[in-house]
């Protein structure tokens, strides 16, 4: 059963990665090119020598982007399937289609949107190369904290259901999530290294494209994985019932 779900997650992730590739190429590459123009212009103005390219722009923006998005999609697809296997039938009592859609929505908010609000994606030349370790540490910490608070909020919501009912318990747990996240984000250090003359439209377009790529990823994972799992449910369930009863 887990193997079936995992393999499904991997290929659904592959498709999600390809869709992200298409979206990122169409909506993100132009702003990366313009950011690199700015970077080279600034370097020339500062009299820095133009370094030789290790990987050409045409490779970075095609094969390089494709490998990155597809591997990213496959990895998230697999993790999505494992988390789905853990929460299905335990958190909420929905069928696979609704469970997968809700999981994708929670994943998008928790893994992508909340970290983005504090440490948004940046185009080339919008950060100091020297601060990458600090920025990576803060970003990874933000993702982990966000996921931990999400899990805590869901656990809280489940405990509140008997007293307040599903609707009010859900609203209360969302309110608790927003409050705690806001406190954490106020406490964490702000990164603001973007040069004053960096074009604002490029920054804006790049960030919208980046957030859009995340939305494409999670929407594909949630809807496609849920649809295929719902469709194959009776067969998968009976195979599972034969090998692994009694279920706990």
């Amino acid at each position: 059963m887990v193997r079936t779900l995992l393999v499904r997650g991997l290929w659904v992730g592959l498709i999600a990665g390809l869709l992200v590739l298409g979206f990122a190429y169409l909506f993100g590459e132009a702003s990366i090119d313009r950011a690199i123009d700015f970077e080279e212009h600034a370097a020339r103005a500062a009299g820095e020598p133009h370094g030789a390219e290790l990987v050409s722009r045409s490779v970075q923006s095609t094969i390089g982007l494709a490998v990155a998005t597809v591997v990213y999609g496959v990895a998230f697809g697999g993790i999505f399937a494992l988390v789905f296997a853990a929460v299905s039938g335990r958190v909420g009592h929905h069928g696979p289609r609704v469970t997968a859609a809700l999981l994708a929505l929670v994943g998008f908010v928790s893994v992508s949107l909340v970290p983005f609000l504090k440490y948004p994606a940046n185009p080339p030349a919008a950060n100091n190369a020297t601060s990458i370790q600090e920025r990576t540490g803060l970003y990874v910490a933000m993702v982990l904290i966000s996921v931990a608070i999400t899990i805590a909020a869901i656990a809280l919501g489940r405990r509140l259901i008997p007293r307040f009912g599903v609707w009010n318990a859900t609203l209360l747990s969302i309110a608790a999530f927003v409050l705690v996240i806001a406190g954490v984000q106020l406490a964490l250090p702000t990164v603001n290294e973007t040069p004053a003359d960096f074009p604002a439209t490029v920054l804006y377009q790049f960030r919208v494209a980046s957030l859009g790529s995340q939305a494409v990823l999670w929407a594909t994972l949630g809807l496609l994985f849920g649809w295929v799992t719902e469709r194959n449910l009776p067969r998968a369930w009976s195979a599972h019932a034969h090998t692994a009863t009694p279920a706990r």
Partner: protein
Amino acid sequence: MSQAIASPTLAAIPLRVPVRELLPWAIFSGMLLLMLLYFVGAEQGATAMFSGSYLHEFLHDGRHLLGFPCH
């Protein structure tokens, strides 16, 4: 807890995978998948297992657009 098994109407039953079955998969494939994410997002950036910067440059556009901290 196993009320799902007793009911014959499959469509109404939420899929429920036993923890014992899930755990080995979650640990081993979970680790591998997180390693993949590390290579896409951070290798030859904040930390490096391999020297050089070819991987960083090759994955450059993807890293930026996928939201990983880059230069």
